[in-house]
């Protein structure tokens, strides 16, 4: 029974949005350019986000968490704000959730008891997800990475890419094809047969260390399989919606920056914003950012109500993938030559924005 529709934030949602926005303003906005150039962000900022307790809140009290449950809608608000600062920062800061949320929701009692208490710590604990593979037209529903059952264990073989913080992560969820369907497996970092490669160099996400991970006859106990054959479907709806939320954040950043620039930049004796060719691009950016956000909120609302959100999350994701490219492209274009120079952030939004349509899972709600 769904009674009402509402486009307004509740007080709690407003408060969370404000809190994360302020955190990003104070810790990310001025520093991000240097982080991006140095290929390394300041872990202090991640720690400050950790201290908000968003991830600890997802964990039930019996395992040491705050037991607040998790709200997909609230998480989209958080992700948009983080990604407004920088996508690499957003992925980094929310990364433990990619491990914690699936364990909380799909894990056995044994798995919950084994893994969750560690994440109720006072300091940031890295854990990650290995999904992507470096192949043309990679299809998440048909991974090259395969799992086989042998006696009381699973043997995993394959190669993953874009695995954030794989070098530090204590645990990772590996997506592998088992009996023709993608399944989730928990792999300890020190597991034999798992090796983390060199840090990757990507088009964007410069402040986020990502790695190739190779699994060679990596043998894990039977009890490390997470959930059943429906687990991946559970996961992908939440990660697709999260990607859409990140796309919204990046796009909003590009929109706001180029809007401000267009009012300040003088050519022919007047601000370039007073020309329709520029102003109409800005108008389009304004409503496409809103449209993206509304699609994201709709998918998150459906997930929050416990409904199957395949359609909603898919539409939110593909819309954000498409529109983030368009909007961040406009951002660079409005700044012209200056937009192409790395002193302005619009080129970073453009590089990072490209990944929304490419990766299916860099975060979760």
């Amino acid at each position: 029974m769904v009674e009402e529709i509402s486009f307004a934030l509740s007080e709690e949602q407003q408060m969370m949005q404000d809190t994360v926005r302020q955190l990003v303003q104070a810790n990310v906005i001025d520093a991000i350019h240097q982080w991006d150039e140095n290929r390394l962000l300041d872990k202090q900022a991640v720690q400050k986000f950790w201290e908000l307790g968003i991830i600890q809140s997802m964990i039930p009290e019996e395992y040491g968490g705050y037991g607040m449950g998790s709200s997909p809608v609230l998480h989209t608000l958080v992700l948009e704000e983080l990604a407004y600062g920088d996508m690499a920062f957003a992925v980094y800061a929310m990364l433990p959730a990619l491990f914690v949320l699936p364990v909380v929701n799909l894990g056995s009692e044994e798995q919950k008891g084994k893994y969750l208490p560690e994440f109720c710590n006072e300091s940031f604990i890295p854990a990650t997800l290995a999904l992507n593979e470096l192949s043309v037209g990679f299809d998440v529903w048909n991974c090259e990475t395969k799992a086989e059952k042998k006696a009381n264990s699973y043997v995993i073989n394959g190669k993953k890419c874009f695995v954030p913080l794989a070098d530090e992560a204590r645990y990772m969820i590996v997506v592998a094809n088992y009996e023709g369907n993608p399944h989730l497996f928990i792999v300890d970092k020190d597991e034999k047969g798992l090796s983390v490669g060199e840090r990757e160099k990507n088009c964007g996400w410069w402040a986020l260390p990502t790695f190739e991970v190779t699994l060679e006859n990596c043998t894990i106990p039977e009890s490390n399989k997470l959930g059943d054959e429906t687990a991946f479907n559970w996961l992908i709806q939440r990660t697709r919606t999260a990607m859409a939320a990140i796309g919204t954040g990046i796009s909003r950043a590009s929109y706001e920056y180029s809007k401000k620039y267009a009012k300040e930049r003088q050519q022919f004796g007047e601000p370039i914003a007073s020309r329709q060719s520029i102003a109409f691009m800005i108008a389009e950016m304004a409503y496409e950012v809103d449209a993206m956000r509304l699609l994201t909120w709709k998918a998150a609302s459906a997930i929050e109500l416990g409904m199957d959100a395949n359609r909603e999350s898919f539409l939110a994701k593909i819309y954000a993938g498409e529109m983030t490219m368009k909007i961040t492209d406009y951002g660079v274009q409005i700044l012209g030559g200056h937009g192409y120079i790395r002193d302005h952030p619009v080129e970073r939004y453009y590089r990072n924005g490209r990944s929304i349509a490419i990766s299916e899972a860099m975060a979760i709600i």
Partner: protein
Amino acid sequence: MIQLVTPDYIKTLQDNMHKLAEGVLRPISRKYDEAEHEYPKELDMFRGIKVMARPKKKKEGESSVSNEEKKPKRGANLGMVVTIEEMCWGDAALLLSFPNAGLGNAAILAVANDEQLERFGNKWAAMAITEPGAGSDSGAITTTATRDGDYWILNGEKIFVTCADRSEVVVVWATVDKKAGKSGIKSFVVEKGTPGFTLEHLEHKLGIRASDTGTFVLSDCRIPYSNILGDPEVKMSTEGFKGVMKTFDNTRPLVASMATGIARAAVEFTREQYEKKGYTFDYKKNLSNVSAVEREWYLMDANVEAMRLLTWRAAWMADNNQFNNLEASMAKAKAGRYATLITQRCSELLGPVGYSTQFLAEKWMRDSKIMDIFEGTGQIQHLIIARNVLEMSSKELK
């Protein structure tokens, strides 16, 4: 709290309206496209139904902000856009032909006094704003209304009037004082049959052909003084004109929902046709692993959803007493443009089926084009949005 899943009461409304659109409008859609201006007599069944109602006036002393204010309200605007989307999934031109549901009716309901409501409330009312020299610039109209004792004398020409033939009265915009600019513009109810009021001709159009769009000539047309809507006094401010323009904040989401309905019809039909060819559409897939046709279809489906959500937001804000000038224009800008693009692409993807008049896809492509034009062109919407978000005046951003 944000909650965008379609509520059950809206679903029920959608289902009911959909049945009506499917059962009554779709079967006669082609017939009246071809018959052009002929009145669709099948729509007589709606004659008794009150399509529009006068907004409830607040009682004196009733505060507009109550404790309940924060709770989302179920309002007429959202119900209206939901209804219109379904009806236009059926046929947009027929929706425009619904008896007693003209734009003029909306204006009369909004501003008429009790005596005027008594006289005109039950009549089909068209709205005449546009002139040969005044399109988007409605402040530039030249039709005049001159007072002569107990009468007004109207002179001028009005074009693009929807329901020109079928309406019983027409709400005509005219200036009572050209020097006063926008402040001098007032609206007047002119009854059909008044001497000097002639329906000059009906237009032949690209689409929405069932809708009878026409041109009126007013030549020393004499109407009672009491036929003026609103305050007759010319105030030297543009507040009055702005008030009139504000009614567009409520009508733009309606046009956006019309656009959404047509686009959805095209997208659904395209899917059905491709499914017959053996394609399957599955929202679990991933865009880099589908054919170009499927990819395009998914993106069109996502765009229809975007059009709808922007429209619903604008309507929901109106229902919750929030100023929605920006959001109304956003919905109209997006939906008007994308309905045009989507129906074009569907026609192309369908090939001969999208061009033959044996099917409706070519008609939807023609019908949808008006959605990016009337109630303010897409360009005007972009101007409104840009001025708003850039905080620039109409002088700073022309």
